[in-house]
């Protein structure tokens, strides 16, 4: 799952650094991801994992790191399962 998340980030987060250089817990916003780019990341994650982020998940913390995204996806999948 983390590799898929990293692929999405590589294509849509528009980070000024290579995603591969970031750790799973590194803050993506501090690394340069804008709020608008996080929208693209959200939509791409929805496409990739066939889920939809509800309003309750629309918080900066959801998208702030690879680990945080993974945790949110696992939770959303368990809810929809």
């Amino acid at each position: 799952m983390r590799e898929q998340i990293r692929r999405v980030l590589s294509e849509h987060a528009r980070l000024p650094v290579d995603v591969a250089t970031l750790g799973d817990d590194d803050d993506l916003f501090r690394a340069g991801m804008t709020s608008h780019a996080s929208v693209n990341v959200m939509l791409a994650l929805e496409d990739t994992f066939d889920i939809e982020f509800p309003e309750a998940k629309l918080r900066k913390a959801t998208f702030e790191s690879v680990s945080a995204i993974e945790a949110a996806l696992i939770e959303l999948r368990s809810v929809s399962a």
Partner: protein
Amino acid sequence: MTSQDLSVGVDLVDIAEVARSVKHFGDRYLRRIFTEHEISCCQGPPDVAAGSLAARFAAKEATLKVLRPDGARPDWRTIEVVRLPSGACKLRLRGSAARLAVERGLGPFALSMTHEAGLAAAVVVSGSASGYGGQPTMERREP
């Protein structure tokens, strides 16, 4: 009113990024972020539409900076840029954004948007609802 009664939010958006999102995600992007009214106000050639959409996205983010949600942020569509027949634009909050504004005692909201040289920007200023009667006011012409 004193300066302590004011809250200010500002945001800057790359117009090319918005154009790219529209091209890549199409309707899904538009309908996830913008209301029907906003989409109808942003028709035209792709580069022109992207500028107007980017200004509206900046307005939503600037408003969020004023609202300062502790937890979940309001859905972008609960913060709407309404274009009046005069061409002026104002903010309209609904749902969770409106509730948050009430909880924080914010309002009315004043908005200014602009776009140039590939960037769109918006500034939102809010006063204390108790000092204004709580009704949104507005500003400035459509960029």
